[in-house]
């Protein structure tokens, strides 16, 4: 197995570049592609994540079968150790490639809070089990995809659009001969189809940036100290067969220690499989060629986790206790009426347990209607998706969000099911609605209502307009049983500001307590 390191390191870099490009490709392809079915498994990054799989499974007390690919990576880690962190992880690749650009305080090899990630992992898994889902706030892929989808990608489009609008409006024709085709090319390839707008764009960006800012303290600070996926892999890697063997009778150069991005090599030059991500730098840097990676020798001890029992137990206790505070809040009694979940969403508590806040559904939503929730679903609901109809509606013939959800928090609906899945109900505000309030004809809502038998109908009525004339106008009203809550009426209402028709979660199928009043009781 001993090989000259240059080649190995090169392979590792190649793998990182390849995986990162694949990641970006899948990210861009998380979009409508000319057919309702997505041709690629765009959510694969989340489905190979064993931490999220464990968290979602514990939270729902069932095996989340969608996430079976994570077993492959657990198995591979038994052989290879934390190779994922060094060779595959797109976040790791980003950190490695930007490391040189971020000024760091010192290049120490010691990891400051290496135990923190285990406490965090313990806390998150226990909390998930007892009903407080918080995995998505620490999972590196959730942070990465969310940051990209909600902040960076839309910002990139703003940048491109403003630049090419400037050239289009201000520059002479010969420059436009170059810039316009370039803009067209970018639009056809990497730019999003349209400018999306998101809530919490800045928070998502800052969360992502924080991981890069932490690089100042230590190389791969997040991976060494915080990353719960890394912690999960570390636990598996403790038993891994592939081990790095450091020099025992070498000099005092300590090259390997200072070059190790994970702080995995100690004073005795033993390489801890808990931290080593097999980047192969040490193999390459060792002047005496004394470091090698090979299948486990008999005398290699399994390293200890060096956890404080007290802290570990405390974090588990906190994880077990905190969930019981969730039901003390008013929202446990009466949820926010404007919190409308995407079609196919499971009942709220199960939905939140499964949802890993990855942002895939918001990225793929072609109406730009799915927005990250801020506080209306509680602290633990931040970044979970909601349909905010004024920013965009749910397209009648589209089922993309259910297709990209990696955990099944949104069940994948067939088009037929989607057409009858009621996610909410709209209500007219007659004080604002023009035909009611001003005697002005409108009914744009009725025009756009997509159900074949329209849920929004109108009656002709004689009203006084603001001039005091009696006019005949068409006034819209709703047939609750037909409305599926897509919110196109709210999105298209031509009033400035607040719409005169508002989508609420009333009547949503997944929550019987939200049933609408009827004259005949169904159950």
């Amino acid at each position: 197995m001993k090989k000259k390191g240059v080649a190995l390191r090169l392979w590792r870099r190649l793998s990182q570049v390849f995986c990162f490009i694949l990641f970006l490709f899948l990210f861009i392809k998380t979009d409508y592609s000319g057919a309702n079915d997505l041709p690629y498994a765009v959510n694969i990054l989340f489905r190979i994540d064993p931490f999220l799989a464990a968290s979602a499974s514990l939270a729902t007390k069932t095996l989340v079968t969608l996430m079976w690919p994570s077993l492959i990576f657990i198995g591979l880690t038994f052989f290879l150790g934390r190779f994922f962190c060094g060779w595959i992880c797109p976040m790791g690749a980003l950190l490695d490639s930007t490391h040189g650009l971020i000024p760091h305080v010192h290049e120490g090899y010691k990891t400051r809070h290496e135990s923190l990630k285990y406490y965090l992992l313990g806390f998150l898994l226990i909390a998930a089990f007892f009903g407080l889902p918080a995995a998505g706030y620490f999972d590196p892929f959730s942070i990465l995809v969310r940051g990209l989808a909600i902040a960076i990608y839309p910002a990139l489009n703003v940048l491109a659009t403003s630049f090419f609008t400037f050239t289009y409006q201000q520059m002479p024709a010969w420059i436009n001969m170059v810039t316009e085709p370039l803009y067209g090319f970018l639009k056809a390839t990497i730019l999003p189809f349209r400018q999306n707008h998101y809530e919490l764009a800045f928070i998502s960006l800052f969360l992502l940036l924080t991981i890069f800012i932490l690089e100042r303290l230590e190389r791969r600070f997040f991976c060494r100290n915080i990353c719960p996926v890394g912690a999960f892999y570390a636990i598996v890697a403790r038993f891994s067969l592939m081990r790095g063997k450091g020099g025992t009778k070498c000099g005092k150069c300590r090259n390997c220690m200072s070059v190790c991005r994970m702080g995995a090599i100690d004073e005795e030059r033993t390489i801890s499989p808990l931290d080593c991500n097999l980047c192969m730098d040490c193999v390459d840097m060792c002047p005496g060629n004394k470091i090698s990676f090979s299948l486990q020798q008999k005398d290699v001890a399994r390293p200890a986790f060096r956890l404080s029992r007290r802290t570990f137990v405390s974090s588990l206790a906190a994880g077990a206790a905190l969930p019981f505070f969730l039901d003390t809040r008013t929202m446990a009694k009466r949820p926010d009426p404007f919190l409308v979940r995407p079609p196919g969403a499971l009942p709220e508590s199960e939905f939140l347990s499964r949802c890993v806040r990855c942002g895939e559904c918001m990225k793929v939503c072609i109406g730009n209607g799915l927005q990250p929730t801020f506080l209306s679903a509680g602290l633990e609901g931040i970044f979970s998706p909601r349909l905010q109809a004024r920013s965009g509606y749910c397209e009648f013939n589209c089922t993309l969000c259910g297709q990209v959800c990696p955990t099944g928090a949104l069940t994948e609906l067939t088009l037929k099911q989607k057409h009858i899945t009621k996610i909410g109900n709209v209500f007219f505000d007659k004080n604002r609605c023009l035909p009611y309030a001003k005697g002005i004809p409108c009914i744009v809502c009725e025009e756009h209502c997509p159900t074949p038998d329209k849920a929004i109908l109108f009656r002709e009525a004689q009203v006084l307009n603001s001039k005091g004339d009696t006019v005949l106008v068409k006034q819209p009203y709703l047939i609750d049983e037909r409305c599926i809550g897509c919110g196109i009426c709210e999105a298209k209402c031509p009033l400035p500001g607040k719409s005169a028709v508002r989508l609420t979660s009333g009547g949503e199928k997944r929550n019987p307590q939200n049933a609408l009043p009827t004259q005949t009781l169904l159950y």
Partner: protein
Amino acid sequence: MDRRDFLKQVMLWSAGITTAIPSFQIVPELLAMEKPSTVVHTKGKDYYALVARVLEPLGTISKFVKTGDQVVIKPNMAWDRNPAQAANTHPQVVKALVELSLDAGANKIMVFDRTCNEERRCYVNSGIQDALKTVKNKRLKIYHPDTRKFVPVDIKQGKAVRRLEIYKDALEADTYINVPVAKHHSLSRLTLGLKNSMGVLGGNRGQMHHNLGQKLADLATVVRPKLTVIDATRILLRNGPQGGDTDDVKVLDTIVASADPVACDAYATTLFDLQPEEIDSTVAAYKLGLGEMDLARMQIIQAA
């Protein structure tokens, strides 16, 4: 304005009593009306072949498209519905017009619509994008409107709107061909040619709905198709303008065409057993002198 008004004004002017010069801004239309508007309709199962047939009595496509022209062909593909649901122009009708225009020597043909549902879904589901893909010609461009290219236009003759944002390509084209689908619309009763022009508008189009008929007529003073081809191969009778239920669709196998946008709408109205006077936009456009609405004063030809 009708002939009587026209003659009266001419007489008054020639008598030197009035210097109402503004009235003369619409003289060209009035003069055009001297010759009765021709509306052609035809029936058949082969929608592609129908287009050439309906244009024959109007002088074929070469009357409208000259060699080297920049042509805009504006179908209605506003909704995420398939051809059978009759919410969008039939793809074969659009394709036929495109190929006829290509044969007539058009330099560039642009096909687009500002959709109501998601743009890409509408282009795909309407079947128009795929139908035009089979026309392998570089002079044909089907594209999504670019938000930078809506230009504010003063509507000088407008009674209900003063200014609208209109797509640049529609304004600059040598030939603008309007290819609406005839269907039910709850507010305007029907959507025909004049309503289809809303697809070149930018901004908040919902505001057009407040006094829709007059605003559409105002729009028609600046967006002026040389040719209107109304697709009534299948018409949506209820739940328009987007439908969704094929039970609401009636197959008529008919296409109507005219160089007069108002006359074309007026005739197509009768296919729904309605009268032109019942459609506000037709009446308003007629009053602005944009075309004929009186069926009795049109030359209505049934093409072979």
